[in-house]
């Protein structure tokens, strides 16, 4: 089962939820895999110590023009909708950051003068997660990280998701927002938890995220983080739209403190461990 954790707005607590959920499930005896798909700013590893670490570079294919074969006919630039190629007087110029690696230029070059070479855009790391006080609880962890200045998140995320082991409970920590990177992360998941905060920005961005999940036809429920009684609009919205609120994590000093120290609060507060495991049962019940 693949569970994605997403939100419209950034900073609502996705990583908090995904790491605590992963830990709690593993404690209850499940085989868990956690993927940090927030490739522009991965930070789940802060709450986990990785052992048996490995790292590999991730490449995107980009065109390389053989100047001897090239006749400057301009077909490649004509074909490129992203304007990543320019025909100068004596050579073709290429702009990597505009390139989407669609392969069109090399495919359509009439002289077969364009081959594709690999360009590094980031890395994927993996390891076994042990929790911040030194023992392995068997979470298989992997993350993706875009190099600074690179923008092609979706291809990196696709490579990361190739590691999905469907025999495990897979938790995907998605990037914030509702555009391509978030969609790439939640695509194909069996269920999605949308994390929000009780503020107008949180509600506004939650609505966008809900719209997106409906288009993707992914079943979902909402989780309200830093919940307080004063701002009730998120709860009302969910009620009106018939959206289940799976959990409310109250704005509590204890929880915030543990978070700021990089400690999983479900580890220190066992009642929360139970609550997170219930989330899993919640999904199974909903799916039936």
């Amino acid at each position, binding site marked *: 089962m693949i569970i994605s954790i997403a939100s419209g707005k950034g900073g609502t607590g996705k990583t908090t939820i995904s790491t605590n959920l992963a830990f709690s499930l593993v404690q209850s005896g499940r085989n868990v895999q956690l993927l940090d798909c927030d490739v522009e700013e991965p930070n789940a590893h802060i709450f986990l110590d990785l052992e048996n670490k490995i790292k590999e570079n991730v490449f995107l294919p980009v065109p390389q023009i053989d100047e001897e074969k090239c006749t400057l006919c301009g077909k490649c*630039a004509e074909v490129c909708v*992203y*304007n*990543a190629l*320019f*025909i*100068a*007087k004596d*050579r073709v*110029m290429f*702009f*990597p*950051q*505009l*390139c*989407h690696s669609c392969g069109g230029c090399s495919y359509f070059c009439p002289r077969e003068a364009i081959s594709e070479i690999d360009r590094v855009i980031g890395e994927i790391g993996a390891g076994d997660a042990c929790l911040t006080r030194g023992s392995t609880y068997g979470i298989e962890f992997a993350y993706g990280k875009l190099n600074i*200045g690179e*923008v*092609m998140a979706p291809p990196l995320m696709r490579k990361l998701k190739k590691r999905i082991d469907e025999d495990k409970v897979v938790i995907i920590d998605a990037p914030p927002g509702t555009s391509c990177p978030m969609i790439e992360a939640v695509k194909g998941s069996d269920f999605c938890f949308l994390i929000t905060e009780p503020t107008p920005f949180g509600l506004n961005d939650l609505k966008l995220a809900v719209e997106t999940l409906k288009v993707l036809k992914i079943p979902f429920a909402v989780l309200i983080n830093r919940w307080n009684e004063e701002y009730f609009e998120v709860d009302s919205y969910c009620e009106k739209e018939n959206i289940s609120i799976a959990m409310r994590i109250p704005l509590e000093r204890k929880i915030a403190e543990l978070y700021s120290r990089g400690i999983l609060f479900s580890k220190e507060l066992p009642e929360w461990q139970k609550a997170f495991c219930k989330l899993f049962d919640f999904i199974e019940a909903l799916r039936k």
Partner: protein
Amino acid sequence: MKIAISSTGNELSSQVDPRFGRCQEFIIFDSETLEFEAISNEAINAAGGAGIKAAQLVVDKGAEVVITGNIGPNAFNVLAGADIRVFVGAAGTIQNVIDSYKDGKLQEANQPTSSPGGRGAV
């Protein structure tokens, strides 16, 4: 020699368009025959890389000089690589700009840029 000027309209009395990549039109002025043509800037519709596309248009028209208000780093590199001289900070009408150019009053852009690349937006 052909000079390409970013323009808001298709006459010599039109105002210079301060942008290069997304200007409305290009006036291609021939300094020998004193004739000109106005071409619509297709790059205005480009989702991304408009500067590069506009540069391609201008190069394909045989321009050796480009006069505009502002030009992005990619487009500048492209024109520099094509040995085209670029003058920036132009203002006023197209005719004003042509006269200023003739009188050597325009500022030539000649810094190779530290290209920040792009976000590759679609």
